[in-house]
């Protein structure tokens, strides 16, 4: 496997080297000592595999279209933001706004996610092995969040569409988020999504979707809007 050592290098130099190695045909690149630097492996458009042997900082894997990124540590804010396709797998925890605005691909956080994971998702799948924070799935428009642990406050607040599956507690739903019983097809789909990452299927799942009462303004339902705004 090709390797890059981050020691003494700026994020720009590291990213250039990752791209250079991928363009030279390396199927897999190991990045040593990332030491939580920001903006690593952003805007990669090839299906190569990049392994970070440690924690990464903000926006790792952002704007990616195709790469498979593995982080053997934690990730900072904005993990895989605006990703189009591919996969980003984090062994430990992630900071705020993981998988923000992703349009496709899969983001996996084996540990816990902080606030606003999956905010404004427009597609793709976000899998959280542990628990998640405040306002997960805020204003999501499409896609799937699978949360194996407990949800933080205001889960799915103002979501337009998409689905959030919760294995643990979901005591505090956001505005216009409602709980439904998952269908057998849902359960099959969740199990299939978890299997490639060896994440056990939770014994029970709740499904959270948009109640659709905020889709269009109705003055007869002014009280709902007052609460939401």
């Amino acid at each position, binding site marked *: 496997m090709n390797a890059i050592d981050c020691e003494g290098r700026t994020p720009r130099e590291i990213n250039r080297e990752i791209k250079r190695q991928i363009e030279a045909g390396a199927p897999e690149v190991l990045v040593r000592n990332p030491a939580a630097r920001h903006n690593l492996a952003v805007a990669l458009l090839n299906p190569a595999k990049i392994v970070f042997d440690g924690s990464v900082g903000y926006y790792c894997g952002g704007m990616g279209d195709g790469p498979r990124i593995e982080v053997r540590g*934690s990730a900072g804010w904005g993990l895989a933001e605006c990703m189009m396709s591919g996969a980003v797998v984090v062994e430990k925890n992630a900071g705020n706004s993981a998988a923000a605005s992703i349009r496709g691909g899969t983001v996996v956080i084996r540990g816990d996610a902080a606030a606003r994971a999956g905010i404004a998702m427009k597609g793709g799948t976000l899998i959280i092995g542990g628990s998640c924070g405040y306002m997960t799935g805020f204003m999501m428009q499409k896609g799937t969040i699978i949360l194996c642990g407990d949800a933080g406050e205001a889960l799915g607040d103002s979501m337009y569409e998409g689905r959030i599956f919760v294995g643990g507690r979901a005591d505090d739903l956001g505005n216009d988020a409602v709980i439904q019983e998952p269908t057998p097809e849902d359960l099959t789909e969740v199990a299939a999504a978890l299997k490639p990452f060896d994440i056990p299927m939770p014994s029970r799942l709740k499904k959270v979707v948009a109640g659709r009462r905020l889709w269009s303004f109705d003055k007869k339902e002014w009280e709902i809007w007052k609460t939401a705004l």
Partner: protein
Amino acid sequence: MCGIVGYMNKSGASDRPLGSILLSMLQALGARGPDSSGVALYGHAGEGALTLRVKLGEGGDLKDRADRIRSRVERMGKVRGASVLSAYLRLIVDGVSDLNALQREVESSAPDVEVISAGHRLEIAKQVGSPDDLDRAYGIASFRGTHGIGHTRLSTESRVDLSHSQPFWAHGVPDLATVHNGHITNYHKLRRQYEMRGHRFYTENDSEIIGMYLAERMRKGDDLEEALRASIRDLDGSFSYLTATADAVGFAKDPFGLKPLIVAETDAFVAVATEEVALRRAFGTAFEALEPQPRTVRVWKLPSKAVKAA
């Protein structure tokens, strides 16, 4: 975009390289705020004596000012040590019964003189410029101690000078210091209330109010953790802030999680920083980093044996 850091050696031994740990974390966060930098260091306590760090002013004959301040302090207590380092006069004073009176006496010597820190263990060093400049001016890397907090500032409001730099000492309260990343949006309203109760503000920086708030809560009977918890209710805006006392380090995060803060804790130490990059720079790879949820409050205390020994 300020950067804040905190560290505590859980064993309570005061011989740890505290200064170099905080400095390396601040260097990693330097890009977040180049305007000023500072540290609040908690070292070995000197048998009841107070250590004062006094800003000698923005200009003029600082040596003459230092002499005048020293003679004023000598009228109120026994000066066991005095040295001038860059813009500061450092005094070790014994037998002071009223810290507020001492502070007033020092600060009335000239309008731009300010007691930057006072405490049995606390020493604050801060100035305009980078963490590297701070170390060059005050040699903080060689400071040993149990715990401390630090700050690099990107000024978004209020002026850039030594007094507006952080950490802020909560004037009048020995050993209480704070560092803050964010905005306290009800600062002006709270400030008016505090001023009506007779408090003096030294800066136009909203962060200054956090220490005053905590000090007032604790005067009314809260312990540090209760005061931090109450602050989440009473302070509006975006904030992650750290505070330290003679025997504790704690933090509070706002209810919306608008400002980052990452925690690393092992059996040996706890370290907190705005970004994980600071933790990795100072401590390598042998710990797990976690971003606490909004509204989280944590306090770590030194073992009571260590506090007594110090």
